[in-house]
């Protein structure tokens, strides 16, 4: 049995959005790539998501958003993680994200944006490259 640091990722579904097929597919793919994945379940508030991130001590938070409210949700997440003293978490966003909003999300602090249709390998590679840096 190994004693080692393993990447731990929270896949979270904030707000009213009831579609989690994509989030589950990503969670499964990250698991198969060797990461420990906590799945939040549907309809979580930002406060709940941040609490989960604190208690689980994840390295990465992935938000899956299909409602079009990705900018205000992401804004609120960054505000809350800073308040809770976990502003160092890596945040990525997936879901229905128009390309025109990507610069705005990155400006907020999102490290990677992976809209629906992104090959899973791309998301995995992105997270693995981050863990090497960290």
């Amino acid at each position, binding site marked *: *049995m*190994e004693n080692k640091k*393993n990447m731990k990722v929270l896949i979270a579904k904030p707000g009213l959005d009831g579609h989690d097929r994509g989030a589950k597919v990503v969670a499964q793919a990250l698991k198969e790539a060797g990461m*420990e*994945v906590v799945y939040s379940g549907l309809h979580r508030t930002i406060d709940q998501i941040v609490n989960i991130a*604190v208690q689980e001590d994840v390295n990465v938070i992935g938000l899956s958003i299909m409602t079009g409210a990705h900018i205000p949700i992401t804004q609120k997440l960054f505000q809350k993680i800073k308040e809770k003293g*976990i502003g160092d978490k890596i945040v990525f966003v997936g879901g229905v994200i128009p390309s025109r909003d990507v610069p705005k999300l990155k400006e907020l602090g999102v490290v990677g944006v992976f809209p629906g249709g992104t090959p899973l390998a791309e998301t995995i590679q992105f997270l693995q490259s981050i863990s090497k840096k960290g």
Partner: protein
Amino acid sequence: MELVDKVLRGDEGSAARLISMIEEGRDEGYEAISLLFPYTGKAHVIGVTGAPGAGKSTIVDKLAISFGRQGGKVGIIAVDPTSAKGSGAFLGDRLRMRNAEKLEGVFIRSMAHRGFPGGIAKATLGAAYVLEGLGKDVILIESVGSGQTEIQISMICDSVVTVLTPDYGDEIQLMKAGLLEIGDIVVMNKTDRPGAVEAAKDIEFYLMSHKKQHWQIPVLTVEAIQGKGVEDLIAALKLHRTYTVENSQGSSKKKENIKRLVLAIFKEEFWGETLKKIQDKAMFDDIFQQLQNSTIDPYKAVRMVMDLALPTE
């Protein structure tokens, strides 16, 4: 140590970080445990075990709420399996603990078992100490749920609840070594299903006729999703807690258990360290080469690896 002070003052973030350190096997983590250890031993540590889908997470959720309402400070450790094909895990237990999660002061930590045998992770006991240091007085541990071999959970818990459903099988399943040997309380869950009452009666009869200790294992009928029977379960848990403290058979079992747990962790650590020492030796590869060419049999290979690891003087 600053981290330990912060945990003792109730800082959740520090507790979470410390649990990760123990999972990673870092010296700092183990030093922190030594500092926390004098503050532990008073919490009621409750294990919940049973097959996948039996309703363990839902029962943990309901227990947390009831204990919380009675003024208990609840910590939860939910263990899920690490993939046999790698280091990944899908930790999905807290999904079913949303009601408990909403309760002020409930701390939930998911944990991948990382190959440790017996239904828990190597870091689970350490995490329980951390949660007690954080001020929790009821700690609920949900096992991996792989069935009959979850003996390790009983080594770290004061009370173990075995969750069964009406389709558990028959008397032959009960006679097999395993599940009923580790539980202090049996819960027949999903009692809205046909045959549940009869199944609970069968198990009760079996347990009565095979009683080996002073404690008579009760069989409770529960419909966890509706919260039915949960108060009876809490009452049974409190009764069992009193028994383990007051009855000599109960307290000596605990002393024996902690020794067995240390030996189990030692076995894992020893294996890891030994493998590190021998796997780069040329002879190691050579043994497996011979095995794969069928020039030696598997048991011969094991004896050769043993000689490599522990050469006789």
